[in-house]
């Protein structure tokens, strides 16, 4: 076999393998998306119907309460809750993360490594182990079924990783930038906001995306801490489709699509930052 042929075969093999991998990655998700557009009967058809015969927006109409047989699942309220909770907790986590990340990136102090490790380890506590004690404490101070209660939990959930990523990004910015600004007449605070913050912006944005995705998708804690439309989030709302005896697969898929779309849009918009975020923040820090 000559070299050229071998190279061509190699290229083709690469493509085929990639294609198979992409199919494995896409098909389960795609099936959910397609199911959102089919009647329930078709979901369970045997043999399976791959492309919906009569794609319709019925499932969406149903969960948004249009049409005759509406299912009273208050998706708009859940959506609003999810959005408010995810955005607020992300914003707070970013502020706290910036402050903490800056401390780790720019200062030398006692217990630094220990503190960093401690922060990281706090993230590893399984949600299921935290859910009841948090519930008991939250209920004493009136944070059950309140958006604030969930926001606080998500902030704590996101802070460690946010600090880690942002720490990495601040380390990318030469210390001299801030020093130059201070010599130029800035206070440390001004130097931070006018010089270091704008430079770390993309990193902070990527940390924000991770925080947002975590909050947006979290289920175990939310299912314990939320009760009603005051605070229920979309993933918890997903359970509304599982009644005592039935699961409305099609409705559930429609809701799944509603959950995924904002995450997907966000990711498409900032995918470059997302990769950069993991890379610089995590690796080079």
């Amino acid at each position, binding site marked *: 076999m000559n070299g050229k042929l071998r190279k061509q075969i190699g290229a083709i093999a690469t493509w085929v393998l990639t294609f198979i991998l992409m199919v494995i990655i896409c098909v389960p998700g795609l099936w959910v998306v397609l199911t959102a557009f089919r009647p329930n009967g078709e979901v369970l058809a045997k043999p399976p119907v791959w492309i919906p015969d009569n794609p319709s927006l019925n499932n969406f109409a149903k969960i948004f309460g249009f049409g005759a047989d509406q299912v*009273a699942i208050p998706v708009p309220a859940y959506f609003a809750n999810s959005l408010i909770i995810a955005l607020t907790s992300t914003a707070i986590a970013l502020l706290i993360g910036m402050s903490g990340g800056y401390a780790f990136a720019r200062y030398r102090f006692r217990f630094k490594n220990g503190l960093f490790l401690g922060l990281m380890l706090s993230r590893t506590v399984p949600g299921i182990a935290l859910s009841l004690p948090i519930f008991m404490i939250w209920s004493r101070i009136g944070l059950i079924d309140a958006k604030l209660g969930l926001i606080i939990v998500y902030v704590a959930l996101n802070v460690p990783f946010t600090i880690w990523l942002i720490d990495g990004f601040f380390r990318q910015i030469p210390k001299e930038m801030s020093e130059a600004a201070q010599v130029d007449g800035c206070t440390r605070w001004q130097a931070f906001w006018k010089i270091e913050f704008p430079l770390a912006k993309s990193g902070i944005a990527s940390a924000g995306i991770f925080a947002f995705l975590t909050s947006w998708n979290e289920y175990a804690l939310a299912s314990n801490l939320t009760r*009603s439309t005051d605070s229920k989030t979309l993933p918890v709302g997903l359970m509304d489709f599982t009644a005592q005896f039935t699961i409305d697969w099609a409705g559930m898929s429609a809701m799944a699509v509603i959950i995924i779309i904002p995450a997907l849009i966000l990711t498409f918009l900032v995918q470059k930052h997302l990769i950069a975020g993991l890379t610089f923040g995590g690796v080079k820090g």
Partner: protein
Amino acid sequence: MTKMTFRKLLAATALTGITATAVVAEEVDYGKFDGYTLRVKLIGGAQYEPLYARIAEWEAMTGATVDVLSRKNHFELDREIKQDIAAGTLDWCVGSNHTSFAPQYGSIYIDLNGVIADATLAEFQSLALENSTVDGRLVQLPRHSDISNLYYIKSLFEDADNQAKFEAEYGYALTPPETWDQVKDQAMFFADAPTFYGTQFVGKDEAITGRFYELLIANGGALFDDDWNPTFNSAAGVEAVNFFKDLYEAQAVPAGSLNYLWDDTGLGFASGTVALNLDWAGWASFFNDPENSKIAGDIGLVRAPKGSAGIRTGWSGSHSFSITETCDNQAAAASFVTFLTSHESQMVEATAGLLPTRAAVWDDAKAQFTADGNNFLVEVFETYAVSMSEDAFTPPLITPWIEVSNEIWPQLQAAILGEKTPQEALDEAADAARIVMEDAGYL
């Protein structure tokens, strides 16, 4: 009082109830609670929601406002209520409840005797009320009941070819089954895995415990003796386990059965790939709806078959409403639950195929189905009316029921999968159940 006497009593009261109540339904005075906000936790889900459309009516009548704190399926609601007990956040008045869950909640719910007018209670089927009573306290007002009967695909049984082949193989005629042994034969006969199955069963959680339990009773066994010693590891218990195991091994049920819950079996039957299906009344309309079901118009229904002791399986329970001890306006709460279980309310649910707990609603609903020309639902209601009155029994109304169930079902699975012999599995479950009962103070 034994179960048999209950049943006789019920049959009597049911009859008198029908004649007495038909007219008075809407003359109940629901009271005035202007400005009061009633906080409630309701079960959610497509079958349960239509009733809640009536809440606005109650609000208009009484001047009160209803604040629905949660609306979840019952397993979720159960977890939430346990959390409320733990955290002392029982700051609500009315909660959805269920026969299987009610005993766990101890004294958080009030005794409705005396709170709900005796005249109102008299309109309910007495068995339903009896099953809602824990330690002599009526802790819940039943909303609708449930029991399973056997659905089957009619055309399979009418097919002459099938009839001939079956008789040749098993020596008796192919007719809708009367005993579980016949179900086993027929299921194996029809099965053609993986495209077609003879029957199916739910395979995990309290669902399979319940199915095992009713077959245990049908085979003449019992979960506990009179002193609450576990006795389900008896010959009747082994026979019950073997029923599931044989079907599973013969591939007469779907291979994934042990991971199935009600939605899987219901949807499976609707997909037209299962011959016989023991299922709840709530599914009837779904099975006969051409939009959701491939077997619409081809469904037969018989009473649940008999076990080896000649008893029919009849695991039953009710969805219900309870009022908390901590409720700040029990009168309003009582008015609310009375309204949601009124004749009119139950008609709303009955027309959707849910089994009423008021005696009169059975007949009125049937009359309406007849008027609508819905012969299938008439048949359904007739069949379920009989089984509700003659076959129904509940799991033991004891606090640790769910815990006991959680000890039993993994062992059932292990036995069905052949990891243990049925006797070993049941013995282990019985030992574990004994510890649970000891911990709970029953032994």
